[in-house]
C-alpha cells in the first residue's frame, strides 16, 4: 500500500506494540468471557445429573433418590468444585482444543459440533460478505447522487430492514415458496449427504441449500449497512479535505475513492466485530424457522439439559470468533488509519 511504503518503516515499532497490546486485550477478554459463560451455566437451577435421571425415569413412576443423583454426579465429575472443573475445561481447550465430553449425547463436544461450526461460520461470514459487497459500493454510489430519489429508496430499504427483520423475511419466503415455487427451502444439507464425508457433490448440495439462509441473514444487515454507508459518505463528502482535494484539481471517482470513501469505510471496518455479533444473534431464530440443523438449536438443547460442556463450547466458540473479528478490525484500522497506528 502506498501509505505504508514510507511512513511505516519509521513507525514499525509503534505498530507492533499496538498489535501486541490488542492481542493481549483480546486474550484477556476471551478468558473473562469464558469464565462468565461457564459461571452462568453453573448458576442454573439443577445440573445435568438431575436432568438425565429425570429424563431416564420420567413416566416410569420410579422415585429418584438423592444417592442416585450423587452417583451420576460423581461419574460425570460434577461433584468437584466449580473452579476446578472450569480450570480443567479451560486447560483442555487451550492446550488440546478439546471441549470435553458432551453429556447429552455421549460423544465429545468436538465431534458433536464439528460440521455445525462449519455451516455456521460459512453462513455468518457469507451473509456478512454479501452485505459488505452490496452495501459499501451502493452506499458510496447513492451518496454521490444528487437526486432525492436514490436517498428515499435507501431510507425506505433501511426502514424495511428493521420492520421486516430476518425472521419475517424467512416466513415470507416460506409462504412464497408454499404458494409459488414449491422448492425445498428448509434445511442446509440433503439427507443423503448428512453424514457423508465432504465431497464436491456434498459441497454443491450445501451451497444449493445455503443461498436462502444467506439471503435471509444478509438482508437486514445489508439494508442497515447501506444506510450507514450512505450517511457516512455524505458526511465525509462535505468535509474540508474533500474541498481541498477538489481545489487541487482532483476529481471524479479517483478523488471520491481516495478521499471520502476511504474515510467513510473506516467506521464500517471498525465495527466488523459488532456485525459478527449481530449475525450470530440473528442466526438462531432464522435457523429455527428455516429448520437449519446448526448451532442455534444445539445451543438451546444444551442449555435445556444443563449440558455445561456443550453450551460453554458453543458460546465460547461464537464469542471467540467475535473477539477475533474485533482484533482483525483493530489491525485493519491500524493499517488504514495512520492516526491509530501512530498514536496507539
Amino acid at each position, binding site marked *: 500500500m502506498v501509505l505504508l511504503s514510507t511512513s511505516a518503516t519509521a513507525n514499525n515499532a509503534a505498530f507492533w506494540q499496538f498489535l501486541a497490546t490488542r492481542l493481549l486485550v483480546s486474550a484477556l*477478554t476471551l478468558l*473473562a*468471557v469464558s469464565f*462468565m*459463560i461457564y459461571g*452462568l*451455566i453453573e*448458576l*442454573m*437451577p439443577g445440573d445435568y445429573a438431575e436432568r438425565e435421571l429425570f429424563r431416564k425415569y420420567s413416566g416410569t413412576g420410579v422415585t429418584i433418590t438423592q444417592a442416585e443423583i450423587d452417583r451420576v454426579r460423581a461419574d460425570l465429575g460434577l461433584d468437584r468444585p466449580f473452579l476446578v472443573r472450569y480450570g480443567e475445561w479451560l486447560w483442555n481447550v487451550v492446550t488440546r482444543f478439546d471441549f470435553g465430553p458432551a453429556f447429552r449425547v455421549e460423544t465429545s463436544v468436538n465431534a458433536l459440533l464439528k460440521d455445525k461450526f462449519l455451516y455456521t461460520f460459512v453462513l455468518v461470514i457469507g451473509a456478512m460478505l454479501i452485505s459488505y459487497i452490496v452495501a459499501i459500493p451502493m452506499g458510496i454510489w447513492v451518496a454521490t447522487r444528487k437526486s432525492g430519489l436514490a436517498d428515499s429508496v435507501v431510507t425506505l430499504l433501511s*426502514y424495511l430492514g*428493521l*420492520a*421486516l*427483520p430476518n*425472521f*419475517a423475511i424467512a*416466513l415470507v419466503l*416460506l*409462504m412464497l*415458496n*408454499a*404458494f409459488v415455487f414449491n422448492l425445498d427451502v*428448509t434445511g442446509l444439507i440433503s439427507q443423503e449427504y448428512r453424514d457423508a464425508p465432504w465431497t464436491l457433490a456434498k459441497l454443491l448440495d450445501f451451497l444449493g441449500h445455503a443461498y436462502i439462509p444467506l439471503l435471509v441473514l444478509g438482508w437486514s444487515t445489508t439494508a442497515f449497512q447501506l444506510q450507514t454507508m450512505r450517511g457516512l459518505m455524505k458526511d465525509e463528502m*462535505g468535509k474540508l479535505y474533500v474541498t481541498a482535494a477538489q481545489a487541487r484539481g482532483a476529481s471524479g471517482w479517483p478523488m471520491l475513492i481516495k478521499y471520502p470513501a476511504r474515510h467513510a469505510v473506516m467506521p464500517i471496518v471498525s465495527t466488523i*466485530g*459488532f456485525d459478527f*455479533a*449481530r449475525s*450470530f*444473534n*440473528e442466526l*438462531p*431464530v432464522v435457523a*429455527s*424457522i428455516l429448520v437449519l440443523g446448526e448451532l*442455534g438449536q444445539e*445451543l*438451546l438443547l444444551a*442449555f*435445556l439439559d444443563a449440558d455445561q460442556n456443550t*453450551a460453554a463450547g*458453543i*458460546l465460547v466458540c*461464537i*464469542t471467540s470468533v*467475535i*473477539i477475533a473479528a*474485533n482484533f482483525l478490525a483493530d489491525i485493519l484500522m491500524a493499517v488504514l488509519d495512520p492516526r491509530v497506528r501512530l498514536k496507539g
Partner: protein
Amino acid sequence: MTETSVTEVTVPQTKPSNRRQEDYYTASQWQLFWTRFQRNRLATVGGVVLSGFILIALFAEFIAPYSGQADTHDTAYTAGPPQVIRFCDRAGCQIWPFVHEMTSSYSVSKKGYEVETVEEKGQPVRRSLQLFYPASSYRLLGLIESDRHLFGVNRGQVHLFGTDSSGLDLFSRVMFATRTSLSIAFLGVMLSFVLSLIFGGVAGYIGGWVDTAIQAFTDLVRVIPPIPLYMALTAMFPRDWTNTQVYFAMTLVLGLVNWPTLARRIRSYLLATREEEYVQAAKLSGASGWRIVTRHLLPGFASYIIVELVINFPYRILDETALSIVGLGLRRPTMSWGVLLQEMTTVQAIQLTPWFFIPLIFFVVAVLSFTLLGDGLRDAADPYAGLRR
C-alpha cells in the same frame, strides 16, 4: 458623513415583518423541537399510528369482542378465514352491517378446512353487528367495571380476522397480543435505561479507574451476542413457572442483555459535558455531585435519551417477537405477537391458513411507526439537522 458620531446610534427598530424571525429566536427549546418535528410528515404519521397502538394496548378488553382465552372457542368455526362485513347479500340489503354465519370443518379427503355459509330456507343466516355490545365483563384499566365491548354480534361470534387452529377469535387475540408485546418492550427498555443510567452515569461522572473498570465490563457484555446469551438465560426458567413469571423474567432478561450500548452513549455524553464550563462553574461554586448531575448534566441530555429510548423500542419488540416465534420466549396461553406467529411457522399452516399472518402485519406496522417516530424525534432534537440538510 465621514465621521461616525456615537451619540447618533439608535437601536434599529424591529419591523413587523421580522415577527416570525423574532418568534423563532425567542422560542423555547421545546417549541423549536415541536416545530421541527411537525415538519416531518412521516414521523407525525408514525406518531399517530403509534397512538392507535397504545390505545389498543390500554383498552384491549373493550376493543376485543372476546377474551381470546380458552373459554371462548368457537368450535363450529375452527381455523376459519376472516369474515366479511356486509351490507348486502342474495337476500337484499340492510342499513346495519352484518356477517354471515359460517362453519368450518376439517376435511380429511381435502387435507384442509372447509368453510360453509349456514343457510336457512335457502338464505344465508345473518349475524348483525352491534356497537357497544354487552358481553363478558371486565375491568377497564383495572378500574372501571364494564361488560360493554366495542362491537359484537347478536348471535354466535364474529371473527373479523378469522380464527386460529383451536377456534379462538384472532382479532381479540391480536388486540391482547398488542398489549403484551408493547408492554414487554416498554418494561425492557425502561429496565435497560435504568441500568445504563447507573453504569453510564457513574462511569461518565466519576471517570478515572471506575470508568475504566465499568468500560471493561460493558465491553465484555457487548462481546457476547445477546440472543445466544438470552437462550442460555431463558433455558434457566423453570418449566413450572406461570406465564406471569415468564413474562417478568423475559422483561428482566431483555433489559439485562441490552443495556451496554446506551450506557456507553450516556458515558461519552457525560464525559464530554463534564468538562464544559457551566459544569465546572457549578463545581467551583460548591454544588454537590448529585445536584450537578441532575440539574446541569441531565436536562441537556433528556431529549437525547428520549430519542434513544424510542429508537430502542422497536428492537425490543423485535427481540420478544423473534424469541417467542421460535418458542424461547412467551408461551401459550399468553398472547403476544410472537406467540400468535408461532402457529404460522409450518409450511402447512402457511398454505392452509394465510390469515395467521395478520399479527405479522401488526408487528411490521408497529416497528415501522416506532422507527419513523424515533427518527423524526432525533432529527427534531438535533439542532443542526436543518443546516446539514
